[in-house]
């Protein structure tokens, strides 16, 4: 009799989950934890990543990693393990124990950069039977995660996106919803499906990781582990999402992400003060203790942090994010740019399609020239940017009337004398006379 009841309960719960899945309700397995990989630097985002890791680069005034954590939290995944390494203090200072973000965060230190499989293995003592793994440097939203949770089945579930451009990504071959092969950075366009690096694993993965050989570049890659498991007959479910998944490969990709996200923010709020005679059009958020002085003209979407001093007579145009404690002097125009905390820009300057790091002191009449279809050289390799002004790292002191030719970068800790034209990128701690 007892077995009968158990069986009925079992069948009922089976049907229930089936029904719920069909009508699109997400059930998160009890206590599912998420491991976020946040130990890497993000070399291609230099000079911005010389002083912080890529996951901490701000988009609409929040670090990329915060979007990942919020996406998990909104799906009731609140127990988060951050694998940190490079410049980990910046991450720890921002997120603390997670309390301010409604989640619980544990940190694991990955001192040696030995690849994704190694990072996941380090989380073994902290995760349960099923757990999610994500990259901390891809922008996602709540729905991205819901898609994966809805489609989850088999030994491994893998989230993919469909892309025209597949260069540099892991590409998937699938058959009847199951992944049959993963190609790392293939030359040919074998498929449109790009691996997002977001997975649900069961704890059996750890045994396989131990057997994963080290790759040619000296790292243990989780995709190698998965490939091995596929060969042994494991069921790897592919779920393709159409929701947000933005991979900012280069620093200038942040501008696009910034404008997309600024356009999505619903509750733009003005807490600072706006002097009489300043004009605010569209969605503009202004943080505590910030002052927008008379004659300034701000067209949203624009977000301004706390304790900023804007104007008088400053123009800020769409898709600009200005961090905390910034000061923008009169007759300066800023457009489609990211300016990080503690930066000062002098009078009569023009900043467009540019990213300026934190704690820069920029003199009057600074101009970032904007160019289209630029080829930017980094470490001997040419990278392409559709449209870009300039990228400036942290802690630079820039004199009066400095012009930066389109597509050039000023690294970090530099001093640029007045009247200089920057025609090539400036390495860190330079003095430019």
């Amino acid at each position, binding site marked *: 009799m007892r077995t009968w009841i158990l069986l009925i309960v079992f069948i009922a719960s089976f049907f229930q989950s089936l029904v719920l899945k069909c009508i699109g309700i997400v059930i*998160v397995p009890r206590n599912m934890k998420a491991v976020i990989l946040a130990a890497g630097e993000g070399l291609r985002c230099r000079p911005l990543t010389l002083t912080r890791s890529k996951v901490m680069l701000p988009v609409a005034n929040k670090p990329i990693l915060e979007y990942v954590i919020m996406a998990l939290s909104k799906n009731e995944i609140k*127990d988060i393990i951050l694998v940190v390494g490079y410049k980990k203090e910046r991450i720890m200072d921002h997120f603390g124990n997670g309390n301010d973000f409604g989640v*619980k965060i544990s940190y694991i*230190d990955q001192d040696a950069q030995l690849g994704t499989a190694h990072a996941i293995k380090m989380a073994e003592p902290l995760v349960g039977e099923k757990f999610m793994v994500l990259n901390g440097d891809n922008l996602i939203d709540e729905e991205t995660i819901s898609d994966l949770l809805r489609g989850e089945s088999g030994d491994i579930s893998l989230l993919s996106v469909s892309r025209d451009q597949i260069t540099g990504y892991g590409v998937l071959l699938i058959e009847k919803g199951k992944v049959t092969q993963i190609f790392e950075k293939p030359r040919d366009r074998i498929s449109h499906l790009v691996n997002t690096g977001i997975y649900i694993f069961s704890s059996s993965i750890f045994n396989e990781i131990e057997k994963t050989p080290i790759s040619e570049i000296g790292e243990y890659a989780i995709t190698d582990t998965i490939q091995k498991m596929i060969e042994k007959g494991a069921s790897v479910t592919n779920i393709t999402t159409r929701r947000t998944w933005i991979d900012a490969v280069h620093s200038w990709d942040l501008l696009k992400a910034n404008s997309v996200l600024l356009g999505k923010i619903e509750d733009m709020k003005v807490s600072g003060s706006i002097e009489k005679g300043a004009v605010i059009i569209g969605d503009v958020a202004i943080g505590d203790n910030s002052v927008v002085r008379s004659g300034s003209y701000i067209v949203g979407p624009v977000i301004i942090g706390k304790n900023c001093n804007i104007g008088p007579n400053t123009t800020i145009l769409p898709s600009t994010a200005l961090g905390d404690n910034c*000061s923008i002097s009169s007759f300066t125009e800023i457009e489609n740019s990211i300016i990080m905390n503690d930066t000062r820009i002098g009078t009569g300057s023009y900043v467009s399609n540019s990213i300026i790091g934190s704690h820069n002191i920029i003199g009057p009449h600074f101009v970032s020239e904007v160019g289209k279809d630029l080829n930017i050289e980094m470490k001997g390799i040419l990278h392409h940017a559709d449209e870009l002004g300039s990228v400036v790292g942290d802690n630079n002191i820039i004199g009066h009337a400095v012009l930066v030719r389109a597509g050039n970068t000023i690294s970090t800790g530099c001093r640029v004398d007045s009247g200089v034209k920057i025609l090539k990128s400036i390495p860190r701690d330079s003095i430019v006379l």
Partner: protein
Amino acid sequence: MCGIVGYVGARQATAILIDGLKRLEYRGYDSAGLAMLIDNGISVYKTEGKIASLEAILPDIKSTCGIGHTRWATQGAPTTINAHPHVSGNIAVVHNGIIENYEELYEWLKKEGYEFVSETDTEVLAHLVHKYYKGDLVSAVIEGLKKVKGSYAAAFLCAETNKLVAARKESPLVAGVGNGENFIASDVTALLKNTRNVIYMNDLELVQVTAEGMQFFDFDGKPVEKKIELIEWNIEAAEKSGYPHFMLKEIHEQVTSVHDTLLGRISEISGDVILQDITLTVEDIRKLERIVIIACGTSYNAGLLGKYLFESLTGIHTDVDISSEFRYANPVLSESTLVIAISQSGETADTIAALKEAKTYGCHTLAITNVVGTTLSREVENILYTRAGPEIGVAATKTFTSQLIALYLLSIYFARKRKKMDVDISKRLIISMKLLPGMIQQILNNKEFIKKQAQRFSNARDYFFLGRSLNFPIALEGALKLKEISYIHAEGYAAGELKHGPLALISNETPVVALATRSSTYDKMVNNIKEVKARRAQVIAIAGMDDSEIGKYVDVVIKVPTTDEMLYPVLSSIVVQLLAYYSADALGCPIDKPRNLAKSVTVE
């Protein structure tokens, strides 16, 4: 940050709630209170001051359902009246957050006939829920909170039902699942003694808690499914957020704490310092003939910098005294004297006693403190809060730099009121101060280099710290930090005093930290460095980034970003803190709890 706890079950609630509140102490608070459900209503006990004071007034209450609160005052002074819980008829509430449309709700509720007894924004919550209460607490809370703009984690008790209802928006709130009993709290740390099964609440959700179970709802009153999570972690490790010690975490927090001390107090366009809590009139400030600073330990070192600032910027004669000495030294004071007491905790027994002594002479009084509503703050006319946030490591770090910032602000404020400082100079100083957080981050970015130096010299028996004029207090602070946590014998000296004694102790095994940032005494400092170098000491200089000379005379240069001469002490402080921290770490010392020392010294 306020803290909230709540309990419904079969056990006596008071002990459980008091224990929970104690575990939230780290959030900082200035008053505490409880509301308990009893047979014929709700009884409320609250008081300003410590949880111990609350325990002292608590009778033996028979109750199995209640809510508790520790308050960190934001709107309304830290008084017993303003302490939570707040009551309206049969409703009691505790709240963490800020009601932004308070004024509007206040006016409206007043028109509706409600009387307000406190100055807090929270009281509107009690009246709102009372207004909408028609037998169902859940719907009353929903209706009430729908009117509210702002942030809250709030818990409500109603005299008529044996349950509590809590809701959250932008302030933390978790529920704890027990066996025949249930809990709510601001933070899991308050729950862990009783249960490890918790449910995290989301914004705009509310929960009805009874002894038997919990039901969660959204603001449309629809039930919400929640999952229980098992907490497997160690509380202390969680609070350290990945750092090995609170001290290192707090050293890093200086990027934000310095920012917070300055927040809203400076205007770079007009060069003004705005200190709204200072009640001294322009007339009072102009009549000041003397300032006496009283403090102990690290605060005393901050006070020494204050002397330099007040004398050079405002022209007011300033003395600094150790509190325990001042009291018994027959002080000479008058009505034109301002006594400034500096104490992180606001509970330093010697400083409070010294201040009371000073008050009997009719002087003006001012406190620089980090904790709202302490004994010290009740004794003084003027308060300048450092707003550095709770500090847990015994060795003061972020509260020291915030004290320095507070002293810069106060001295510029006085100098401007006394017309001793041009706008140009104050503007320049204010802009430079705004840039300090970014510079602190720059020092932290290079901490590996400081770590290496600390490790290299960690086996030294003695350490010397030398400085002149405004670097002298930092020499004392550097020595104090090192002594406190690494147990290495260290002394801070005014560099000019070297020849009068300590030079005899210097050998080739003695590391000497020379605070050699740009100042009017820079050349003299270089001479002192040469003196110790001639005795073959190992010299570590702390100097500005723009100084390319100093490297010729010393063994190691630790560079800090170039700033205004007057502001270097803030940056040098970070370096000496890191030096002490990594020395102690290399020696395996218990950094957060050094032997024989306590965080706040509340005995004389």
